[in-house]
């Protein structure tokens, strides 16, 4: 059998959403990355992702792409503009896992709005390894190691000064 019926206890998700097994497995893997391991949660999340899409995740890549889009939308609504950008999913996932969001169940994602305390916690947990760079160059200093010898050498054959070899 190529398809299964996915039942979910989540009232906001239709109870007859189904996905092909390979797509369902790919979705499960994706959401396990957020710390979800409970079968009921994974079913609910698969349904949440595929709800409203007629292809019903015929291809695993398409299903995961849908899941990514869903999560990015959810994360941007929770984290706000401050963390918007290309790394949103990676950083948002890290914050979600660090706050143990999965322990609150699939409903945390499927409900219309996340609880305020969780929003505060997840915003504070977004990893910011470094602030925006203000690039500059630290010029390598010129040091004439032996000024008298340098004077003689220049007089003798006009060679380059004995400064850094990295120049």
């Amino acid at each position, binding site marked *: 059998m190529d398809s299964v019926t996915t039942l979910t206890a989540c009232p906001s998700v239709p109870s007859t959403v189904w996905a092909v097994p390979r797509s369902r497995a790919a979705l499960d893997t994706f959401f396990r990355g957020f710390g979800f391991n409970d079968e009921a949660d994974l079913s609910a999340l698969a349904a949440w992702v595929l709800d409203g899409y007629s292809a019903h995740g015929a291809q695993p890549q398409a299903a995961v792409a849908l899941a990514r889009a869903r999560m990015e939308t959810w994360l941007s609504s929770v984290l706000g503009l401050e963390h918007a950008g290309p790394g949103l999913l990676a*950083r948002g996932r890290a914050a979600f896992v660090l706050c143990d969001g999965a322990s609150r169940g699939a409903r945390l994602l499927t409900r219309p709005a996340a609880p305020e305390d969780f929003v505060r916690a997840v915003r504070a947990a977004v990893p910011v*390894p*470094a602030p925006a760079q*203000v690039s500059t*160059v630290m010029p390598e200093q010129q040091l004439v190691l032996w000024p008298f010898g340098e004077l003689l050498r220049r007089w003798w054959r006009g060679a380059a000064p004995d400064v850094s070899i*990295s120049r």
Partner: protein
Amino acid sequence: MEAHSFSPESAGFRRAGVLGLAAVTTVVGTLEMHRLLSAQGTSAPEVVLVFLFALCFGWIALSFWTAIAGFLQLALGPRLPGLRYPSVDEEALPLASRTSVVMPIHNEDPASVFANVQATYESVAATGHLDAFDFYVLSDSTRAEAWVAEELAWSDLCRRVGGQGRIFYRRRTDNTGKKAGNLGDFCERWGRRYDFTVVLDADSLMDGRTLVKMARLMELNPRAGILQAPPLNVGRTTLFARLQQFAGRVYGPVVAAGAAAWQLGESNYWGHNAIIRTEAFINHCGLPVLPGKQPFGGHILSHDFVEAALMRRAGYTVWLVPELGGSYEQPPPNLLAYAQRDRRWCQGNLQHLSLVMAGGLHPFSRGHFLMGVMSYVASPLWLLFLMSGLVAALHDRFFLDAHSLDTASLAFDAPGSLRLFAVSMGMLLTPKVLGLTLALVRPGEAAKMGGRVRLTLSVLLESVLASLLAPVMMLFQSHFVFGTILGYRVNWSSQQREDADLPWAEAARRHAAHVAAGVGLVVVAALVSTSLVAWLIPVVAGLLLSVPLTVLTARSSLGLWTARRGLFLLPEETEPPEVLERAQSITEEHGVEPVSDAVERVLTDAKTHALHLALLESQPGLAESTSSPAALESARRKLLGGGAEPLSAQEKVAALLDVGTLSEAREQRLMRALS
């Protein structure tokens, strides 16, 4: 704002006092030595002996007069002239500047590193000036396990203190220039965001009040380029470490105050526990790569002295400010670890020889280079001095007419020799006596160090043990100096363990040559006379006892035993400052879970996986910077091929830098687990 940070008018008087008196003392001592040796004419070995004596005695004389200056500075008023200090009103104002506190690390224990960062962070927060500071852990760690453990420790720390956006973690994949390169990389990426940068070491710990005071002093003294807060050794329990801590606490202030008293705005920078003016540092302290091969060419190893010299060359002053306090670090736990550190520093300091004559430097910067060189070269000089003395004695014994020794005018002036010996020893011990005196007269200080009797006893015991350990260090350092100059590699593979007991076998292996040297000295001296053996006992005893001394002083049990008996006690142990207590309690409460296999951990643990990938993706360029495509290819084959072949260290690093490989491998594992 007016510049207040140039050396004051009293600088000339202070410098003439210390340097002039040191020079006079050296001349007088050398003449006396020459008189003693020339009773029977002067042989070639004796000429060498006098020359070596002049160098060694000059070094001792400089330390002696520096200690005297330090004692006077501390007794008469600890504040250095030349710096503008904040008034009471100014101290109440918020800081107008932004300061970064950076801690470069390299394969360190993340538990203690991040405990120190947290304690320092909280201490700054307690001052109410946290908004003026950002914290950076700048990792140069090459071990994959250290890297992943640091990421986890950083994340935990940020969660504990709510520090995201204020405590940053950056790992460099390219370790060019080592610590100086690490700091340079920080300056080029984020330096322009800050007015000042406080540089810490991996074991540094600083009180928030000290950091605020340093930032404020920099604000008030716009020509000050670097302020160095002398760090106090604390926190270890082995007997060796406790001896270092005690010596640093009792004698260190006298020496530091003395150096600060005459060097003033031309002081030195020790590479950590210091604040630097970031823009000046960026513009004027980019280190050159020296021409020629190692040990004298290549990247500058001991960057701090050179950066101080460059800062001074650019017109900014460099100050050692002992009165700052609240600045801590940890000493090595045992003699072998101490020697291991010295091996690295020795090569770095000797490299400075090629910079002594460099154009445009302040004379004091040249002096710092020479003093750094001398702090290691003094050992082989002392060794050569001993050898020359022995050769001279053998020469007199076997080549001089025996009857000439009976002539009164040609006889060896034994009382004169004893007098010179006593003067030399007195000059060596003066810093200890002055430090002890200050500790005894300062109200309440002796009580915190076990009481007056135990404090004095501690100084006596420390002096005896230091005298026994000194000849061993002399041989170690001589080995390092000759090794560096002759270009042979001085290998050292022993592992550094935190306050762990040292095995007898390792100590015996490291000290075999020292014991043999001690036996050799006794034999040669006995050939001359038994009295010469007696003269050499202070040196020989340390060498013959080097194995048990190293093993026993490496024991925490002995260190703690002395602490229980009130010996070598520090006020920071009896009444620990808050920041020290906090760092200790964080280390105990929030232990970092060890990472035994970094790749395995990232692939199996959702938290580690998510965090690691987030950090990789947040630092564009990091993931692409993998230096070995072959290692990545091989790692992918092993990870995705389904086999159980372990990854090499290089393959681990390559895999950890590649988001695609990590994601694929984790998906594959999860899929496999599901099916």
